[in-house]
Every structure is written in structure tokens, then in C-alpha cells.
């Protein structure tokens, strides 16, 4: 075994610089927190706990902008997941997490453990995970490595979720060259909870036991947290050892054992937390910190699957499928019996102590003795410089791009074949979307919808990110991301409740990147305030860049909504011929960052038009009221590709076409003004609907026949639904088969 450096050698050779701890931070720890030099193990613990991934030291000042409170919010950010009251003593529990770096290096395991980790966050709250969603942004499919990355990522998400028996009911997948070296893989888990069973990551009560449950600890994933807080360079292939390996079967056992404990024997338990990033050290120190307790652990008792592990390795391992419990003294054997039934380890590895120190023993020696809060609360926040991106200033000076569409039918068909637009069924059908028989709406619609057993309510959920808009204007783009998510939720007839987020950005030490982070959070926060959807959980993923090129700033908004009565659930497909078609919301010249712009020019540019959030909220409420009154046959949110794509998608479900005659131009058919809907209304409710949405909805035609007959201001077209559907369905399978 390698001899560990002495504290003096550490001071001199500065190995912590490779672990993302700065010299300033190291000096602060020595001089202000410990008043001595930290040893090797302690230095390792500091470097992991002070990483951005664990401490949010860069992003914290910005995250404070988020509204986090509301009448339904039972738990906001800071715990395993956010908790939102849905009535009848029940709550919905959700969070999203990014696993971009592991996915870039080892896509199957990176994606699988991304799903595994977010599931543990949700069941650590005492909730049963009931659905998974993802948000994927990859490079263009003309690259064989990207196709491999995507195939493996999808296989990893499915491999883990299918085995766990948790349906994957929604998500998004978009393509842009900017993500080629650094794909975005975000996973969101949604759970249901009886409010009385809610748990927290808390350890307190002198003499209470710290119990380790689940899989054994190995050397995998050591320094995963700091790995995620670094940028990639071309050498990143060598960092595979920082990627963990998942075992969904083990996690399924862990889930059932933990739920048995939290649902039936919560009185034995003080707190519970997932061992996620930075493994034992983060879970134990955060739980002790939350309980304002001291803690002493004996690392010799930690179940290990490799011999000769050092204290440093045991503490920083990110082996999967492990949980840490704080159990009331006297109930250790009771807890062990539950885990024994599932053939899982459950071992007392330490106790809560009276002081405030975090003490670790290994081979009979004290290897760490530091204040608990030095790992959790004393982290130095890092002030950041920020500067408006030059491309925004340049773009503002240029005239806005105006699309020219000479052949409407050709452009329409070309649009449906764009990878970002085309059907994702070849991927989503490899996910079990129906297991546990509560899926009312699965992948492919605006939001996934699950019924809540024992009630006639449903929960709707969606993930939305649009890096292009946020790149062009972070603040307006941030607003648009929330409006887009809310529109998806409302299109299903659900009331938006709250959001979770994953903030995927480049290197925050670049002033332009930090500006993007700051301003997009401002936009998201503003929209969340107006739309009354607080932020209840989230995650930050920085340093998403390859060889100094950042990805688009890509915050992902995961929103959950409540369907009060599933009888009034609304689908996105036209239900019958002869219904009146309405376009809800004003259409403007919103082409900057649109799919049309990318398709016709190969790039995106321009300035975004700001949006009137109060106005959008007002008519969305009126629309929802019409849906809840049962007046709406179908509703589809307008997003990438605008009205053109929504019309086509709405016609695909039942092969019902439409006759549309309106004064939009063919370009406006593809405009991406946010907050709009395509709604079909049975003629008997049409007058009432039109009155309720007066000023914000315009009748554009009727559902009819088996083609889309369009009569626009400048052009007309007659497009057979079957032909359009074939183009839309075959585009991705065709691209994925390429042999290049």
C-alpha cells in the first residue's frame, strides 16, 4: 500500500490542488477552522465536501434567488428531495440530478447510476418512487461516437429503471453539435408519500446509532464529486475509475427494505440519507450537521468488498446502493432484522456523540477529528466575476433573421424529420413505461401522467430544457423554460405545482458563463414567482465543457402538476373529426433560436423577445378552467417547430387531420412564441370556450379528414397525415443506422 503523505508533505506538495481544493481554501482550513495542518484523510474529506458538487460554493449566491416557499410546499431545497402536498394526506416528492460527466466517459453506467442516485434521493424521504423522466441533449447523429453514447445512455436508463420496476414516463431528447463532447444526461424521479411517513437526513441524540445499510463499499467512484467539478480535456478517458457501477437489483432490495422501515417503523428512526456524491463522508457529516450533533465512526466496521482500503478510500468511495440511517439506541437489532430479510448488510458503524466533532477511527487510530460544520457550513463561498456574453451584444446590433419559406410542404416535411422533432419512440419503447399499472399517459405527449391509487387524482410531470434560447438570452430563456414546462403540464389538464431543476453550465470561472448562470436563474426565479411554482429541489452541474468549449447554458426544469379529476385529463391527439380548432396565445416573430432557424441556416442567432408572464398566467388559468369543465377534447403545447409540429403531432394519434384557414404566414406556422396551445373543442362547447378565452384564442379551423389542409396568408398545402407520420417516425431509426 502506498504510504500516505504526512500533513507537512501535504502542505509542501499541495496534492489537494488536483482534488479541486484551492490554496486559499487549504490555508483557510488550516488557519481559521482547524488551527493545525489537516492530515491526508482530512484533506481528502475537505476536498470532496468543499467541491462545487457537494457545497454549491460557486452557485449558492445565485440559488438564493429561487422562490422556495408556498402553501403546498412541505419541504424545499436542502433535503434528499422536495415535497409538495397534493391533499388527502399525500404528497408528491421529486428531484432531478445531472450525471453528465460520468455519462460522457462511461455512458451505460453513467446513465444507470444517475437514475439509481436520484431514486435513492426520493426514497430517502420515505416516498416510493413512481416515475422517472430524463432530459438528454446530445451531439448531432452524424457522428458514430455520439450514436454510441446515445445508445448506451438510453440502455443504461432503461437497464436500471426497468429492473427497479419504476416506469419511465417522459422526458426530452434534443440534438446539437455543442453537446458532442459533453452530453447532458439529467434524470428526474417522482415519488408518492403519505405525509406522516416523511423522513429527513438528520442525525442526533447522543448514543443513537449510525447504521450503514445496503451494498458493500469498494474503490469505485472515488472522487466522483470532484471529477464532476472539473472540466473535461481530451485526456478524460483516463478518468473512467471515477465512474460508479450500478446494481439495480441491489437497489430494488434496498428500496423495499427502506420503505418497510420508514412506513412501518418510523419510530425506530431518527433520520435517513442516501450515500450519493462523496459517499459516507457527505451523508454522515450532513446528517450530523443538520442535527447539530457530533459523530464518531469506526471505519473498520464498514462493509467492504475489497481488502486494504484506506480511510480516505472508504470515506470517499461512491459505491452505489447504500444508505445511512440514524437509529434510536435499542432498535439496532430490529432494523437489522428488516434488512436481513432482504439479504442486505445493516451494520452499526458509529454513534452520535455529545460534542460537535466528526471523529473517524481506522485500525484503532483516530484518522480524523474535525468540527462537523467545517465540512458542511464553513465552506468559503466563491465570489465570481461576471460579464455579459459578447455574442449577445453582437447579436443585438444585427437585424433580426427573417425566414423565407418558398415551398411550405417541403419545409413542413423537412421539419418533421429533424432529429430534435422526430419521434423518439425507438428509444422510449426500450423503457418500461407501464410497470406497476398506474401510467395513464406514457412517453411522447406533453407530460407523463400517473394516477394516484385510491383517489381519482393524477400527477402530471415534464422535463424541459432549451439551451438555445438560454444561450441567446439567459434571462428570457430561463423564463421560457419555466413557461414551457407549465404549458406542458396545463396541456394535460393539470395545475402546475412546483419545479425541480438541474443547472447544466460551463466553467463558472469564465465571467460570461457565470453571467449566463446568474441571469438564467433570475429568469427562472421570476417565472416561478409569477406562475406560483416554487423551486423545491435541484442540482448544479458546472464545468460542462470539452477542450475549453462550453455547452449551451442548459438549465433543465422538471415540473409536476396535479390533475384534480382524471375524468378531465386531456390528451394531445385530436379525438374526433368536426371539433373546432383554436390557437391559444399570440403568435409573434419568434425565430431566434428556433428549430426553423437551425434547420434553414445551420446555426442560431438573434435576440429573444421578452414575454408577459402575468398575461400568460392569466389565460393559462382560463384554459385550465375550460379543461376542468370538460370542454376541451385535445390540447397540445406549441414548442419546437411551432404550430406546424403541434398540428402534425396532434393528428398522428388517431390519424385525424384538420382543415386550417387563418391569416398566419407560412413562416409564422413555425414561429416559437412561448406559452401557446393548439386546442380542439367539440362544437357544442365552442361558443363557451371562445368566450372564456376571448382575446387570447383564435379559431383556426376544424379537425377533419385524413390530411392537413392548410390555407395560410401566403401559401396553401394539403399534407396527408399518413405520409407526415411516416417521415416523423422513420427519421431517427434511419439516422441511428448510419454506418459512417
Amino acid at each position, binding site marked *: 500500500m502506498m504510504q500516505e503523505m504526512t500533513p507537512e508533505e501535504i502542505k509542501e506538495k499541495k496534492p489537494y490542488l488536483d482534488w479541486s481544493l484551492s490554496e486559499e481554501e487549504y490555508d483557510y482550513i488550516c488557519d481559521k477552522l482547524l488551527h493545525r495542518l489537516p492530515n491526508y484523510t482530512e484533506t481528502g474529506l475537505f476536498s470532496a465536501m468543499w467541491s462545487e458538487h457537494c457545497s454549491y460554493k460557486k452557485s449558492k449566491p445565485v440559488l438564493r434567488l429561487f422562490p422556495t416557499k408556498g402553501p403546498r410546499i412541505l419541504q424545499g431545497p436542502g433535503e434528499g428531495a422536495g415535497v409538495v402536498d397534493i391533499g388527502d394526506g399525500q404528497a408528491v416528492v421529486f428531484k432531478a440530478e445531472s450525471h453528465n460527466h460520468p455519462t460522457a466517459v462511461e455512458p451505460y453506467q453513467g446513465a444507470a447510476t444517475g437514475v439509481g442516485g436520484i431514486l435513492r434521493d426520493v426514497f430517502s424521504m420515505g416516498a416510493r418512487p413512481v416515475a422517472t423522466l430524463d432530459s438528454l441533449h446530445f451531439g448531432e447523429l452524424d457522428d458514430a461516437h455520439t450514436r454510441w453514447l446515445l445508445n448506451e445512455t438510453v440502455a443504461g436508463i432503461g437497464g436500471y429503471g426497468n429492473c427497479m420496476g419504476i416506469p419511465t414516463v417522459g422526458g426530452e431528447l434534443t440534438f446539437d453539435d455543442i453537446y458532442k463532447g459533453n452530453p447532458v444526461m439529467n434524470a428526474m424521479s417522482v415519488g408518492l408519500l403519505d405525509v406522516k411517513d416523511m423522513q429527513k437526513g438528520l442525525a442526533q441524540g447522543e448514543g443513537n446509532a449510525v447504521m450503514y445499510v445496503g451494498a458493500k463499499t469498494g474503490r469505485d467512484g472515488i472522487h466522483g464529486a470532484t471529477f464532476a467539478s472539473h472540466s473535461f480535456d481530451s485526456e478524460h478517458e483516463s478518468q473512467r475509475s471515477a465512474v460508479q457501477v450500478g446494481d439495480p*437489483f441491489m437497489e*430494488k*432490495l434496498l428500496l423495499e427494505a427502506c420503505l418497510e422501515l420508514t412506513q412501518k417503523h418510523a419510530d425506530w428512526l431518527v433520520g435517513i440519507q442516501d450515500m450519493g456524491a462523496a459517499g459516507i463522508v457527505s451523508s454522515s457529516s450532513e446528517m450530523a450537521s443538520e442535527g447539530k450533533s457530533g459523530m464518531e465512526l469506526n471505519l473498520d466496521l464498514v462493509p467492504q468488498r475489497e481488502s486494504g482500503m484506506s480511510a480516505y478510500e472508504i470515506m470517499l468511495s461512491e459505491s452505489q446502493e447504500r444508505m445511512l440511517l440514524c437509529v434510536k439506541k435499542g432498535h439496532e437489532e430490529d432494523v437489522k432484522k428488516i434488512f436481513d430479510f432482504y439479504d442486505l448488510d445493516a451494520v452499526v458503524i458509529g454513534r452520535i456523540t455529545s460534542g460537535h466533532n466528526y471523529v473517524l477511527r481506522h485500525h484503532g487510530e483516530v484518522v480524523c477529528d474535525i468540527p462537523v460544520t467545517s465540512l458542511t457550513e464553513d465552506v468559503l463561498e466563491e465570489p465570481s466575476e461576471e460579464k455579459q456574453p459578447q455574442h449577445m451584444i453582437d447579436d443585438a446590433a444585427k437585424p433580426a433573421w427573417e425566414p423565407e419559406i418558398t415551398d411550405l410542404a417541403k419545409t413542413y416535411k423537412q421539419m418533421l424529420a429533424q432529429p430534435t422533432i422526430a419521434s423518439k419512440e425507438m428509444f422510449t419503447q426500450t423503457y418500461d413505461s407501464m*410497470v*406497476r*399499472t398506474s401510467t*395513464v399517459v406514457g412517453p411522447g405527449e406533453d407530460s407523463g401522467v400517473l394516477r394516484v391509487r385510491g383517489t381519482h387524482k393524477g400527477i402530471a410531470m415534464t422535463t424541459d430544457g432549451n439551451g438555445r434560447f438560454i444561450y441567446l438570452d439567459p434571462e428570457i430563456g430561463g423564463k421560457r423554460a419555466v413557461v414551457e414546462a407549465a404549458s406542458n403540464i396545463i396541456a394535460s389538464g393539470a395545475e402546475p405545482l412546483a419545479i425541480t431543476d438541474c443547472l447544466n453550465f460551463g466553467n463558472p470561472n469564465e465571467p460570461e458563463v457565470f453571467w449566463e448562470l446568474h441571469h438564467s436563474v433570475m429568469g427562472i426565479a421570476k417565472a416561478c414567482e409569477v406562475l406560483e411554482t416554487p423551486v423545491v429541489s435541484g442540482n448544479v452541474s458546472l464545468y460542462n465543457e470539452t477542450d475549453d468549449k462550453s455547452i449551451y447554458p442548459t438549465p433543465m426544469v422538471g415540473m409536476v402538476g396535479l390533475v384534480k379529476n382524471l375524468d378531465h385529463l386531456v390528451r394531445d391527439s385530436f379525438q374526433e373529426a368536426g371539433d373546432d380548432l383554436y390557437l391559444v396565445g399570440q403568435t409573434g416573430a419568434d425565430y431566434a433560436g428556433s428549430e426553423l432557424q437551425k434547420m434553414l441556416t445551420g446555426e442560431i442567432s438573434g435576440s429573444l423577445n421578452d414575454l408577459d408572464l402575468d398575461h400568460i398566467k392569466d389565460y393559462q388559468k382560463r384554459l385550465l378552467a375550460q379543461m376542468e369543465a370538460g370542454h376541451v377534447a385535445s390540447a397540445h403545447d406549441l414548442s419546437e417547430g411551432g404550430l406546424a409540429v403541434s398540428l402534425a403531432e396532434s393528428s398522428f394519434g388517431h390519424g385525424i387531420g384538420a382543415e386550417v384557414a387563418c391569416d398566419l404566414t407560412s413562416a409564422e406556422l413555425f414561429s416559437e412564441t412561448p406559452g401557446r396551445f393548439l386546442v380542439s373543442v367539440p362544437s357544442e362547447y365552442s361558443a363557451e370556450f371562445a368566450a372564456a378565452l376571448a382575446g387570447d384564442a383564435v379559431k383556426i379551423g376544424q379537425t377533419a379528414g385524413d390530411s392537413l389542409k392548410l390555407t395560410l396568408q401566403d401559401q396553401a398545402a394539403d399534407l396527408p397525415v399518413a405520409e407526415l407520420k411516416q417521415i416523423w417516425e422513420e427519421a431517427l431509426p434511419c439516422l441511428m443506422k448510419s454506418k459512417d
Partner: protein
Amino acid sequence: MKFAVIQFPGSNCDIDLYEALHTVCGADVAYVPSKESSLDGFDAVMLPGGFSYGDYLRAGAIARFTNIMPAIVEMAKAGKPVFGTCNGFQILTEASLLPGALKRNDSLKFVCKTVELEVVNNDTIFTSEYQKGEKINLPIAHADGSFYADLETLQKIEDNGQVVFRYSKENPNGSLNNIAGITNERGNVLGMMPHPERAVEALLGNTDGLRLFKSILDHAEVKA
């Protein structure tokens, strides 16, 4: 009639079967962990879908060695209804309660979708509520669903009328003779890859699987 839904470590469609029987059909049903060794008091046994033992080694290969299996074999020998869907089917073939084996799908991928089936044999305790030759739609969700048997066995199960369901439009996994579900020779053990328990409620968009459970319950009534 009392149903047992077996819970193997890694079963995950256990609740689907339980709710289909209990909540939708109003039947008497209880979970039985595979660590138990007795099925006393039960009249029928249901093996759910999922990933017993993580599909490690081979789907169903480890589950067949669990404590409960001898009791399931006894039920089968006694002529009581034994039903396995998806992983349950895989376990029944591994335990030799049904002939043949389930191989990896020929796409090599997990596939979850609704497929059309033909009810080939309605003269069983599981399918009496269906018409012979009737086309129904049921969901599938599996990676190892390609039914295989040697030619002699295949001929035998065809000749005996043991093929109960066949994929009638698209074969999603490459199974021989488009087989989706088979019984044992006696007809009291049914294994099928599709999930009838996922198609019992209009709210979830499909009720084509409901009659399978009604058939078993009818059979019990006739007997009683």
C-alpha cells in the same frame, strides 16, 4: 378461491397482479414471499413479472431454487391454476413446469409496447372467456421473450394445443411459431410474455386482459 402472488427478490409487477385480482376483480389474494415454503390455503398461484435476482445468470434461473418452488410444483401437480407472466413465464420454464426456454429478443433490446395477439386456444381455464381466433391487444415489456424449443418439443406442444397465444401482427422478439404463451400438457399451468394484468382498467387505456382473470375465477365457480 384464494390467489397467491409470489414475491421473488426483484419481482416488480407483483402489485400489478395483486391489484388486477383484488381491486379490479374483487378476488381474494395475498402476497407470498419466495422465502416461504408453503402455499397451504391457496387455490391458485401467480408468478409476476420483474427481474427476480436481477436476471443474473439467466432470467428466472436463480428464482427456481427459492423455498417456495416445491410448493408451486405441488400446486401444478394437483391441477390447480399456476400462472406466470413475463419473468413468471421465464421462471416456469426454468423450473420445467413448462417446456422450452425464453431467449434474448432478436432485437437484443428491451421492448415495451402493446402488441396484437391471437387467442389460439380458448379451451383452457385461463382463456374460456375469449373466443377462439379472437384478436386482442396486450402490452409486452421484456428483453428475453423469444420462445424457443427443440423441433420435437415444438411439434408436441403444437399438436397438444398447448399454444394459447400467438403474436398475430408483428412478432416483437423472434419467438418460434410466433408463440406468446403456452400451457403445460395438462393445461393448468400458463406462461406468457405479454402482461394481461396491465390491461384491466379503462383508465389505463386497455381492458383486453381482464377476461383472463375472469376465466380463472369462472372456472373456480363452476368447480365449486
